[in-house]
């Protein structure tokens, strides 16, 4: 089937449109969006298997062959990320059924949710730099709506800043694309890569690379461009927070990965040096934030920043192993951050506060929640044999091999600090004397637990089943470290 790689974009798009017609009927909306999300997971699994079997898949939209038309390209990295994004959004959707509230459900929540998935999957799949901008905007527009939906004061206040930051970064994106087009005269990423290596990346291309780094750094929350993230992600309800934390910043990171391995790999001494310094500072600031705060949402939000730094460090090292480590860690982090946010969301639902000092002794009444959180915390901190450990081992080893001693050491140190920050929640929130909360002793959480438990189980299998996962990761890293594979697949030479 020619259009297979389009389906993870098309299914949620159609579902999102159809859902607009049924805003009154909440049950129908839930069923429709659930079915469509499940269908997206299934088709993206097919894409993954297809890419594993037959290599990179391309689709020339409107039958305009590359490099003239917009090409969708699904290599292993895209296929893996699309698959993960679909699973996470399915989990967040299940969680939303019980927690998001009728008010939001009536105001196009599910519809916008599907459009967000369209944007994310599209950004992962497209092989055209301007189309990447368009899918970014689809994703951002949906995120604006999800952020502001509900209209509480904090949401209104934070979404203004979030939108402003993103408008500026979008304008810079357009500017960067304009500069790039004036030099290479094409927008197809494979074709750009070819042209850039023909002219051997002169200084002006490096300037454009740094401009792209700023644009994607703003979206991906890299130091010093992360300042908007803690405030904005703090505002919306848990499932929205989970999908933002798991997907949106990762799209920025994916774009850095794509552009810096495919388009600008020739002047690594300069661009990747900058990226490396930024990555290390990102890890440090993230870790400081995660330790300093006593707000459980903020702690997890700062953990996102740490993870972004770790992945960016892997990209900056730019060897086969470090890229494999980055890909592995990226997928691990998407999965586990979503789970952590959902678990923290349940804690807030039980206690009615996100202040850790007012929470204690939850494990007495909610042992399931406590132990699931404990497992998720161990995974995120990278305790062997869970998945965070494997990703970091690959990354740190490759860092030492390539002579990035400082960076590798800081990635190692960050594990300890992350462990401390997430254990702080466990020790203070779950141990100790049980307290009385306004919601009463027993809040029904069993149905809310389905989604995070699924994600945590997935994370454990991802770590323990490394033997089965490894070929996928190495296929992704191979394409990343050798752009010719990508170029040949797209331009068919």
């Amino acid at each position, binding site marked *: 089937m020619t259009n297979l790689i389009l389906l993870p974009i098309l299914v949620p798009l159609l579902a999102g449109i159809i859902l607009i017609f049924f805003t009154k009927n909440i049950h129908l909306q839930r069923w429709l969006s659930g079915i469509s999300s499940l269908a997206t997971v299934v088709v993206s699994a097919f894409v993954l298997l297809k890419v594993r079997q037959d290599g990179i898949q391309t689709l020339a939209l409107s039958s305009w062959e590359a490099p003239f038309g917009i090409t969708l390209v699904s290599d292993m990295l895209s296929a893996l990320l699309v698959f993960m994004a679909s699973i996470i959004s399915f989990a967040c959707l299940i969680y939303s059924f019980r927690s998001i509230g009728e008010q939001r459900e009536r105001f196009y929540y599910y519809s916008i949710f599907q459009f967000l998935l369209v944007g994310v999957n599209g950004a992962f799949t497209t092989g055209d730099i301007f189309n990447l901008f*368009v899918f970014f905007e689809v994703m951002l527009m949906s995120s604006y709506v999800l952020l502001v939906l509900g209209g509480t004061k904090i949401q209104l206040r934070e979404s203004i800043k979030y939108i402003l930051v993103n408008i500026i970064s*979008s304008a810079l994106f357009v500017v960067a694309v304009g500069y790039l*087009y004036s030099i290479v005269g094409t927008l197809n990423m494979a074709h750009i890569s070819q042209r850039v290596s023909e002219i051997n990346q002169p200084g002006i291309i490096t300037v454009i690379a740094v401009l792209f780094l700023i644009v994607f750094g703003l979206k991906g929350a890299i130091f010093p461009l992360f300042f908007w993230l803690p405030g904005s992600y703090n505002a919306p309800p848990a499932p929205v927070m989970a999908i933002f934390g798991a997907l949106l910043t990762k799209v920025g990171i994916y774009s850095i990965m794509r552009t810096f391995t495919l388009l600008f790999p020739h002047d690594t001494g300069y661009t990747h040096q900058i990226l490396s310094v930024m990555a290390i500072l990102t890890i440090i600031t993230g870790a400081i934030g995660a330790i300093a705060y006593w707000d459980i949402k903020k702690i997890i939000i700062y953990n996102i920043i740490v993870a972004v730094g770790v992945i960016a460090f892997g990209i900056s090292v730019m060897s086969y192993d470090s890229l494999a480590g980055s890909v592995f860690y990226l997928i691990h982090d998407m999965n586990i951050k979503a789970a952590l946010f959902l678990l923290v969301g349940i804690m807030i639902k039980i206690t009615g506060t996100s202040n850790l000092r007012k929470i204690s002794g939850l494990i007495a009444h909610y042992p399931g929640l406590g132990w699931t959180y404990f497992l998720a915390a161990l995974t995120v901190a990278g305790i062997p044999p869970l998945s965070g450990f494997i990703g970091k081992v690959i990354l740190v080893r490759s860092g030492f091999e390539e002579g990035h001693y400082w960076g590798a050491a800081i990635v190692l140190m960050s594990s300890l600090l992350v462990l401390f920050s997430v254990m702080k929640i466990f020790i203070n929130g779950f141990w100790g004397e049980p307290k009385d909360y306004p919601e009463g002793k027993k809040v029904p959480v069993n149905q809310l637990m389905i989604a995070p438990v699924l994600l945590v189980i997935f994370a454990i299998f991802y770590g323990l089943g490394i033997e089965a996962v490894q070929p996928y990761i190495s296929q992704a890293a191979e394409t990343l470290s050798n752009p010719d594979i990508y170029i040949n697949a797209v331009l068919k030479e």
Partner: protein
Amino acid sequence: MEILMAFTIGILFMSATYLMLSKSLLRIIIGTGLLSHGAHLLLLTMAGLKRGAPPLLGEEAASYADPLPQALILTAIVISFGVTSFFLVLAYRAYQELGTDNMDRLRGTEGND
């Protein structure tokens, strides 16, 4: 012509930055509008200002216009149209709800211990 456009774009970016640094929300929104105008003009200028026949429809013309920047700019304009209108409605709603359009008073300080 390109030099003139460069100055125009520069002035647009400059005014946009100035406006976005002010405290009033409405000025900021106008600033974002100017910023995207500047970016769009830049896109058009960078792709080369030249005259030519429309491509694909004939094969005899001496020179052809590049259709791509026009397609890009149209897309970018539509997107910024959507974002700006969303931002305007949001600002209006925020003004009603929060009772101020002063960015200084929209700082998130409460509950950050």
